[in-house]
């Protein structure tokens, strides 16, 4: 089909990241091809011209503190974009403003050509979000939550049922049965949140700390899903401070500190042949321990 948008995703996908030993089950492959079909649809025209997410001069101030001090960022369609930064750098604030959860004091956020704040309906239709530190409607069971999210998005009930079942199977949440999401473990909650974000096959996924509190098995599963999603023409933006994950997954990286972008580019540009962690520490400017402190430990 139209899945392979000309010159878009496949070349950017990091081949070799998906380990052969973790071959996704049939259900996963079906789901992903389904998602890829949906994602690729209509991308022929826009993939090159329009960035998946464009931030222009975003500013947010909380009381006296300037949390985000004017961020300009362009996320190319089909990229796997990692937003790196130390705690309190403004990652969550920036992402919240990009997806319409937090009103910026100044600036714009444009999703695939649709301004999140002036044209929210079109922008939000193309957007899947996994926020961090936000509750889900957690007194529903996993299946109920997915059904709710799908119907809320105006999807066809039959499609919702089919995709919800597949997502639950793939993410190994099917066994939880009628357990309410509030009784899920932290990792399971991340997975159901991701499932909610994926359900309507968005063309841009914005994920805040998707790998936090996730065990290695689920982590590699989520990585698989995201890599496939990007190879199918989707775009992922995710915030993290786990270097290793970013290095393995991302095609593009931006380093954020004190509310401003310090470095941005493709992974190789940012690394410049060095270890990403070294670059990060240098850019952010952390202090190094001398070995004298905490002698009582």
């Amino acid at each position, binding site marked *: 089909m139209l899945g392979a948008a000309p010159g878009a995703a496949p070349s950017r996908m990091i081949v070799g990241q998906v380990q052969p030993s973790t071959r996704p089950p049939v259900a996963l492959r079906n789901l992903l091809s389904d998602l890829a079909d949906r994602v690729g649809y209509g991308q022929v025209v826009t993939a090159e011209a329009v960035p998946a997410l464009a931030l222009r001069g975003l500013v947010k101030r909380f009381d006296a503190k300037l949390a985000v001090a004017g961020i300009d960022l362009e996320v190319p369609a089909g990229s796997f974009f990692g937003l790196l930064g130390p705690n309190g750098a403004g990652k969550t604030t920036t992402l919240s403003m990009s997806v319409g959860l937090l009103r910026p004091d100044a600036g714009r956020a444009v999703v695939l050509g649709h301004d999140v704040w002036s044209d929210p309906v079109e922008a939000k239709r193309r957007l899947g979000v996994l926020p961090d530190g936000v509750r889900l409607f957690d007194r529903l069971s996993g299946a*109920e939550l997915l059904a709710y999210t799908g119907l809320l998005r105006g999807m066809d009930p039959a499609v919702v049922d089919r995709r919800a*079942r597949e997502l639950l199977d793939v993410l190994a949440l099917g066994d939880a*049965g009628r357990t309410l999401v509030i009784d899920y473990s932290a990792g399971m909650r991340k997975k159901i949140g991701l499932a909610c974000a994926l359900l309507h096959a968005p063309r841009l996924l914005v994920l805040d700390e998707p790998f936090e509190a996730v065990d290695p098995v689920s982590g590699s599963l989520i990585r698989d899903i995201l890599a496939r999603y990007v190879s199918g023409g989707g775009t992922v933006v995710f915030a993290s401070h786990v270097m290793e994950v970013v290095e393995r997954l991302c095609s593009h990286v931006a380093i954020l500190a004190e509310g401003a972008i310090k470095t941005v580019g493709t992974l190789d540009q940012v690394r410049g042949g060095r270890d990403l962690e070294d670059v990060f520490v240098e850019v952010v400017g952390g202090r190094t321990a001398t070995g004298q402190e905490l002698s009582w430990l």
Partner: protein
Amino acid sequence: MALTLGLFARLKLRFLANSLRGKGWRIAGFVMGCVAGGWFAVVGGIVFALTGVDRGPAFTLLIPAFGGATVVLGWLFIPLVWAGVDETLDPARFALLPLPRRTLIGGLLVAALLGVPALATLVATAGLVVGAAARGGVVAAVVQLGGSGLALVLCVALSRSLTSAFASLLRARRTRDLAAVVLALLAALLGPLQIGIVTALQSTGVDRLVRPAQVLGWTPLAAPYLVGMDVAEGRWLAAAGRLVLTAVAVVLLLWWWSRTLPSAMLGAASGSGPVRSGRVAGGPTAQLYPRIIGWLPRTAYGALIAREARYWWRDARRRANLITLTAIGVFLPVLGTLGATSFGSAGTRSPGPPTFAIALVGSLAAVMLANQFGFDGSAYASHVIVGVPGRLELRARAVGYSLYVVPILVVIAVIVGVLSRHPGQLAVTLGALLAVYGTGLAVNVIVSVLAAYSLPETSNPFAVKTGTGMTKSLFALVAMVGAVLAALPVLIGAALLTGAWSWVMLPIGAAYGAVLAALGIEIAADRLDRRAPELLAAVSPER
């Protein structure tokens, strides 16, 4: 020990100060709370000080006995059914500290004592000290001071232990139905109290009240308030007995409180119930809809209603509200009806519907929605992400809640109709109830969008934040008055129309309520569309 208690006290005050810093409307709320507390303190103090004026039993016995019992019962009921408790120092936060349980209870008690309501109560009951000094000199005053202090501890321990016990009952899936029943019964206790007050007001003879007051004086409800007068009149033994009685009650309450603490300390972290495995019939969308409303369309609107319907039962906080409403809602009109037939104008003409009770219940039903977004907290983010239209959202929420409330209102109307032996009453009552509920929806939907506030994410459904108790009560009061005023035409009609014409009130009242509710939703929907992110920020707990 004393050092630790001091730490708890400073912690509480620091929390209070920090919560007010730089938040204009919170300071306003706090100031209003202080004003209300001050008003209560002054009025209460004057009433209690009257004990020193005269030696008649009306002053020396009835005022402290009934006044004191009112104070204690107020501490018992108000947090439970109305304002919630200030759980700034959530026990769960101390779970990891190596604190003996006794120290923790002491600290939490001290922290709970530091607040506007406690201070106001102390000032009010200081009126008794003044009275005792006037009648019995310094010794009586000192004894009464001890009694008043002990009474305050009793009040705080009572409200804390009770809400904590209910919280832990409501938390456990096994006991929550039991808790619901007990809570309902407790709220129903308001009924006999009301009867008692009505009877007391009807029989103006002071003599008939002396006996109950004497009995009351030997219960913890009023005992600590009488010790000053005992000493002034030379009944030393009685004073000592009453003090011991109160102290025993306090100790028992604290012990009870400490028993429920472990469950509260596990807090939200242990919210886990059983893993309910097993496949459910039907696809995910079919599971979302409760069977009784399974016919609703599989659309965003239907899904919203279904989720609301599930939430009013599954969320402990909402369920507690619903249960309280049911208990009060059934008992108040019943008493109103009984009161109207046994006292007052009975016999001269067919009694009108219990208008006051109807207005109260109808508006109380709607006021539960005054902070409907606060119930969801940060989960509301999912709606903002999807971009749910405000009109759809508010309509569905109103319908979802009405699925519970309208049947309750029907039951109330039927009971009133049966009790008053006038079937016509059924229609009038139901029409008036629906009208007030509808206008209440209109007012509260607007309030819920404009004045939402976050609820603490503890496992205690009665917990509120410092200062929000007052704000909440104020908004609720304004909303209730507004609702009743808006429904006044129907209420007046219901009170005047009797006989065959009374059936007309049912369609009129229902239509009136529906139209006004729709109007309120229209107004609020527009606001909601424009300020959804701000609403989300308002209901998200700060971290």
